[in-house]
Every structure is written in structure tokens, then in C-alpha cells.
């Protein structure tokens, strides 16, 4: 009985310690922001590997998600004779929810896992220690550019996802199923609000960008420096990021759209 209690306590202390280390790392990364101005190249390189390389998967997924929404939405809405509002349905679900959330999930799988593996391997091959012994702060030099690259890329990717999704929905709804072109756009414009929908979506993806990159970098940085340790850390990144995104999405939605 007491053993069980002690084990519970140990787990609690352990996770608190993890949490503390994670926040310290976040603090150090944010404090290192000056590094980006002295070495803009570093950020550029990371924007490429975090953002540009995730572009393809995000663009394709966005288009297809939009097309599926167009199809599904059409069949449901046409039962109420409300096909005209297809544009509203597609764009509202994309801009508010699917854009930020699905992009974040894809990001965690594509860029997050890559970041963790990269940092973990740099740790395993002593490159981080090596930098430290060269009197270079690895958090500032290696982690900070990646962190901000993720933070910047995520809203961009989410916006592209939503925009392409709307196009996909338009293609299916107007192009294939014969919804009226004018109604599609005008209903959409009448119902979608910039502050409530677009801006909130951007805020969501900013938060997700922070959380996903943070988790990925922290997992990589605190990975056990062996092949097994890095692979575990990579798995953890994807699992933790996905859960965090879905959980946070609920909280953010409740805060933003609840009254």
C-alpha cells in the first residue's frame, strides 16, 4: 500500500521535474531570440526544413479535406434544401477547426518527429556537447532557430491548408455538384467573420506551432542519447504533440466560441 503511494509520488515528482525542465528550455529558447538577428541564416535554413518541406503534404491534405467536406456537406445540406450554404460549412469548419488542427497533426508527424530525431542524434553523436565545449550555447544556436521557424511556419501552413481546402470544396461543390457560384461565395462572406473565424484560427495555429515545436525540441534535447532513446523520443513527440493539440483545441474553442 505504502509502496504504491510511494510509486505514485515518484511518478508525480518525476513528471513535475520534466515539466520544469521543459519550461526552462522554453525560457532559454525564447531568451535566445537575439541570436536570430545576429545569425539570420540559421532561421532561414530552418524555415526551409520545417516549413517548405512540410508544404507538399499540407497542401495535398488541405485540398482533399476540402473536397471531402464539399461532398459530405452537399449531401447533408441538400436534404434540407440548403446547398447554398455549402460554402459556409466548408470554410467555417476549415478556418475554425480543421485548418489549424489537421495542419498541427501533420506538422507533428512530418516536422516535429524530424526535429526530435535530429536533435536527439546531435546529442547522441556528442555534437551538442561539442558545441558546448567550443563555448557555443547549443540551446541558442541549435534550438532557438528551430523553435521560431516552427512558430512562424505553422500559421502559414494552416492558412494554406484552409485556403486550398476552400478551393477544393469550391471545386467539388460548384464544379461537380452544381451549387451556385455566387451563392457559394456570398453566403460564405456573409457568415464568416474575420475576427471570430479567421483571426481565431490563426491564433490557434500560433499556439499549436509553439506547442508542437516545443515538445519536439524538448523530447530531442532530453532524449536518452542512444538509438533506442532517440526512436522513443520521436514516438513520444508525435503522441504528445497530437494529444496536446487536440486537448488545447478543445480549450481554445471553448474560450473563443463559447459565450
Amino acid at each position, binding site marked *: 500500500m505504502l509502496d504504491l503511494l510511494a510509486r505514485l509520488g515518484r511518478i508525480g515528482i518525476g513528471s513535475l521535474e520534466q515539466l520544469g525542465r521543459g519550461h526552462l528550455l522554453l525560457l532559454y529558447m525564447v531568451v535566445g531570440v537575439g541570436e536570430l538577428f545576429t545569425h539570420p541564416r540559421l532561421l532561414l535554413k530552418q524555415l526551409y526544413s520545417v516549413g517548405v518541406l512540410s508544404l507538399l503534404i499540407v497542401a495535398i491534405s488541405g485540398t482533399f479535406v476540402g473536397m471531402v467536406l464539399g461532398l459530405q456537406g452537399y449531401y447533408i445540406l441538400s436534404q434540407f434544401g440548403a446547398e447554398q450554404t455549402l460554402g459556409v460549412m466548408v470554410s467555417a469548419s476549415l478556418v475554425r477547426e480543421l485548418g489549424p488542427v489537421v495542419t498541427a497533426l501533420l506538422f507533428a508527424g512530418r516536422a516535429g518527429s524530424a526535429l526530435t530525431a535530429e536533435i536527439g542524434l546531435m546529442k547522441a553523436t*556528442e555534437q551538442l*556537447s*561539442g558545441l558546448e565545449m*567550443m*563555448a557555443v550555447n547549443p540551446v541558442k544556436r541549435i534550438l532557438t532557430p528551430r523553435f521560431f521557424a516552427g512558430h512562424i511556419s505553422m500559421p502559414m501552413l494552416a492558412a494554406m491548408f484552409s485556403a486550398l481546402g476552400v478551393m477544393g470544396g469550391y471545386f467539388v461543390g460548384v464544379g461537380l455538384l452544381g451549387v451556385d457560384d455566387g451563392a457559394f461565395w456570398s453566403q460564405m462572406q456573409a457568415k464568416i467573420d474575420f475576427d471570430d473565424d479567421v483571426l481565431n484560427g490563426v491564433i490557434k495555429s500560433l499556439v499549436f506551432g509553439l506547442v508542437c515545436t516545443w515538445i519536439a525540441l524538448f523530447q530531442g534535447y532530453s532524449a536518452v542519447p542512444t538509438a533506442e532513446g532517440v526512436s522513443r523520443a520521436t514516438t513520444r513527440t508525435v503522441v504528445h504533440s497530437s494529444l496536446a493539440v487536440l486537448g488545447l483545441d478543445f480549450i481554445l474553442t471553448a474560450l473563443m466560441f463559447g459565450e
Partner: protein
Amino acid sequence: MRDDKPLVTIRGLRFLRGDRAIFDGVDLDIPRGKVTAIMGPSGTGKTTLLKLIGGQLRPAAGTINVDGELVHQLATRDLYRLRMRMGMLFQSGALLTDISVFENVAYPLREHTGLPESLIRKLVLLKLEAVGLRGARDLMPHELSGGMARRVALARAIALDPMMIMYDEPFTGQDPISMGVLVKLIRSLNDASRLTSIIVSHDVREAAQIADYIYLISNGIVIEHGVPEAMLSSASEWTSQFMNGLADGPVPFHYPAPALEQDLMGAAG
């Protein structure tokens, strides 16, 4: 006369990993301008010792004094300034894998000196020449053999002309030729630029060949220290077992276990 004082002085060093004491009261002196080897069986925390000297880890107790500064009490800024005067050669080389050999050697120079590009180029080529790899400057780290990677890392470690270099297992996993090259390099670098070298190793023959002084560490304490000749012919059973590589001795061949008969009987019952 300042040269008489040891560069690194360690007193009463205690370091814990979890509940296990890696070091428990280690006293060490690293003399200036000499090659000092720190030897011991695997798992005695030799690498940990280098990290402690480099300030990457902090001791639970005791003092580590490097060139008059207490490493473990330095503020980050001062620690980094001190590290600029230390070079460290990691076991794997620890080259940055996404930039070329040239850029790797240039890295600390670009980082810590505001030298113009033309001068950096000259310095890098000189350092690469010193390790015999000037021709390999455009290769990427993954194109190098293990021995070459270590030599590039060595060129990088001496890029800022440090006062001392720490070698972490420099001979492990090297073929005899690159081993010979490294032995020669370490010795000649030490003598040519009046460096202080610390070698952590368990390769007795190579270490004994180039070291001026040897510390033998096991179970968290210094077992014995002295010049190589004295160590090789030491009267201590433990030292002679390690230095001559005998299978059984004070360090038992068997991992602690209950008596064999008892274990076998237990399995049957």
C-alpha cells in the same frame, strides 16, 4: 615559476549519478605542458571526469581548479570564456554533420573571433595541414573515416590555440595505422605548441607510450599514479592486472553472484 603549478587541480571530488557514487574523493593534478593519461576500466566515469573539468557537469562535493579558476563555481559567461581556452576531442569526433570539414574547423574561429574571411581561411588551412587533412577540406563529415573524423575534430579543437586539450578515448576503435597517426599527432601537438594534454583511455600500450604521467582510477578513487615505467612494473596486484591485461586478479572474472552450486540447485527446485 608559474609553470610549476599544475594546470588542473582536483581535490576531494565527489560525483553522484543517481544514488551511485561515480567519484568518491578523487585527488588529481594535471601538470602544465605534459601529457597526462587517466586510465581505468570501462564504466569508471573517465568521460565524466572530462565533463567535470569542462564544466558541463557539477560535482556534488570537492573542488576543480583549472588555471586558477574554480570551474564549478563560474558564472556561465566566465565558464564560456574559460572553455575557449580548452579544446576537447570527443570519442565520436562530434563534428557538425551538416557543414563541411572546412566549415567545421572554421566554426570556433567564426564564432569567437571577428577575423576577416581571408585570415580565417589561412588559419583553417594551417590547422588542417597540422593534422594532414588539408586536401579533405571540402568533404562532408559522413565521407570521412573514423580516424579522419577524429583528426578533423582535433584540428577544430586546436583552432583557437587552447592551453589544454582533453582527449576522450582517442584510440578506441582505430586501426593500427590511424592509431599510430593519432599517437604521433597528440605527442607532437603537445610538444610543438606547449599544450597541456589530458588523455582518457583504457588502451594501455598507446597511453603508456605517449603519457608523461598516468593516473589509474577505479571504483571512484585514484588507485595509483606515477610515470609509465613505474606503473608498468608496479607491485600493486590491481595495477599490474590492469596494465598487463590479465583476466583474473583483484578484479574478479565473475560478476558477483551466489555460488554456482546454489544457483543450479535453486533452478531445479
